[in-house]
């Protein structure tokens, strides 16, 4: 390929100009031809415009469309490029600016703010595509919580949109728990668990009869303490003689079975009388004891016990 020399280029341009001057050009396009005219003057009286054009040719127009489509630089997409986690830092800065912007808006107590299910850490890492540490994500959630505490009627649109972008898909707080009630025969059926035991209680209004696995309470539980704890929900609310309970309990030992019954009776009683909830909560009846036996580990005698040290 023969590259055009500068001399060759000028020659080519001259050839072009010669060619263009001979052919008829659109008159309106040429700036140099437009001279000042008055309204009283008659067109056609001006001196030949072509001559002036030859003396001072107009500068070539900058091709803006082409220039703007030409690449100039490779630059980072985000100002926090050099931090290594630009998307996360951009999110934090955006949230901080929002917080500063709307700092004067009234807030509600943290408990009264709408419940929001923010991304879990793993989901957030997927969302930004960067390995964000737990601590940094917690600081981001803190800002989210502060923005969420703005008085619900006055939340600005941009805050609302930003907060929604941090919600995990499928709102877990939208699911309403079904309040279970007494059935048509006046029975309240509830389950309770403790250790390995599971108890199912059917509670009806009555005179205080209790049947555990077809046996009376005294036969089922030898110890007084177990009997006390099984009926603790009825005893602390003074309803021992107002309900009959028909109980099935499986698995575990005596204590576990008794305390599983406590929980089940407490739940069944709440179906009959929901107003008792604070009393029962205080009596420790509706709190689930989630402790289970810790598994045995290899190298240990029990869950944590180490074998005795033997010399040689």
């Amino acid at each position, binding site marked *: 390929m023969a590259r055009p020399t500068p001399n060759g280029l000028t020659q080519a341009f001259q050839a072009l100009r010669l060619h263009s001057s001979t052919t008829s050009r659109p008159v309106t396009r040429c700036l140099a031809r437009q001279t000042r005219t008055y309204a009283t003057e008659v067109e056609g009286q001006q001196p030949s415009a072509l001559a002036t054009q030859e003396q001072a040719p107009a500068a070539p127009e*900058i091709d*803006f469309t082409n*220039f*703007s*489509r*030409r*690449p*100039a*630089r*490779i*630059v*980072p*997409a*985000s*100002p*926090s*490029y*050099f*931090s*290594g986690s*630009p998307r996360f*830092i951009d999110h934090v*800065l955006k949230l901080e600016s929002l917080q500063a912007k709307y700092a*004067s*808006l*009234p807030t509600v107590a943290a408990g009264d703010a709408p419940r929001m299910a923010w991304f879990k850490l793993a989901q957030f890492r997927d969302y930004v*595509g*960067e390995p964000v540490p737990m601590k940094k994500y917690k600081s981001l959630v803190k800002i989210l919580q502060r923005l969420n505490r703005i*008085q619900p*009627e*006055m939340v600005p649109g941009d805050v609302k949109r930003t907060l929604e972008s941090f919600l995990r898909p499928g709102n877990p707080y939208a699911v309403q728990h079904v309040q279970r009630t007494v059935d048509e025969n006046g029975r309240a059926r509830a389950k309770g668990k403790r250790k390995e035991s599971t108890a199912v209680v059917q509670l009806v209004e009555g005179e205080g009869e209790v049947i555990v696995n077809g046996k009376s309470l005294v036969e089922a539980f030898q110890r007084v303490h177990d009997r006390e704890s099984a009926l603790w929900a009825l005893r602390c609310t003074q309803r021992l003689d107002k309900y009959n309970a028909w109980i099935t309990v499986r698995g575990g030992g005596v204590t576990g079975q008794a305390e599983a019954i406590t929980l089940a009776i407490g739940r069944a009683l709440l179906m009959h009388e929901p107003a008792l909830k604070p009393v029962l909560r205080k009596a420790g009846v509706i709190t689930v004891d989630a402790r289970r036996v810790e598994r045995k580990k290899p190298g240990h005698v029990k869950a944590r016990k180490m074998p005795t040290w033997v010399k040689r």
Partner: protein
Amino acid sequence: MIVRKLCVRQSRQLLALNRQAPAYTRFLSTETPIDTAVQTPPKESSTPAQNPLHEVVQASRDIAQLNPRQQWGELEKRRHTFNNLGSSVQESYDPEDLIRNPPKPSDITLEMLLAAGTHLGHSTSRWNPQNSRYIFGIREGVHIISLDVTAAYLRRAAKVVEEVAARGGIILFAGTRKGQKRAVVRAAELAKGYHIFERWIPGSLTNGQQILGHCETKVVNAMDQELPEFKADLADRPSVKPDLVVVLNPLENVVLLHECGLNNVPTIGIIDTDADPTRVTYPIPANDDTLKGTSLIAGILGRAGEAGQKRRLEMAAEGKTAYEPITARQLRLDPLTGSAPPGSDLDKAEQA
């Protein structure tokens, strides 16, 4: 009355002078003052004078019955009204002002630097003798940095930032100390640069592909508009390196400065009396422990960068660039081999 008598009886000097002391006795008097001769005539207004805040106070009485939005509006209105009352403070220091509206390099004065505390160095025992030419003297066991030197070096640094910005350079502002974040981000925002306010990840320059490889880059034209058609060509490209690094705390960022040295990246740094001035290319001798001072310097450099960017965009509007733009051909070439990728349009064109 008793007091007056006591005064006369006890005060020997007054007796000796044998003259009345109306000025003193008047202050001691418990009586109501006598009417002066000149009396201000009562205003000829039919309506009695009203407290200007009367309406506001009246309106805010039943604030408890309003809904939260109206309540807040009322409170804001009240605040707005009451804030204008009282004396107006003419000149005061607002810490936000340095962030919101930092001064330009042409506004640098020694008073401004002094007010920001940039002259305070470290205890004389901690000094680095290489800084002796920047030190004015010793006061109470602390080195005092010469402010005219600070101003001169700061102006030079501002010029460097401006020229780099005008030539389309990538300017990185780094300030990793607690509290420097906002100043750093603001300076980067003004200068259209980049910021670091947390830890500098060692190897971001020397091992850039590993550390910054996943971070997004873009191809822009001279007017800073993104050109999405070159997006595919950005894969497997080496990470972007800054063309100028401004460090507000060089003591803690030795690794960053070392990497810049290895990559021939010029650096600007605030050099306190205990820092090593040879670690940076363009030192600014000043106190790096005061947030007011560092945010002032960061703001000035940010403004300088802003001016440079403005110049660059003005040139671009005329269709000129002060730097050599990357060409479409360079972008299309394989970054690893430096030749046209096989099978591409570019390859076919070269074959022909």
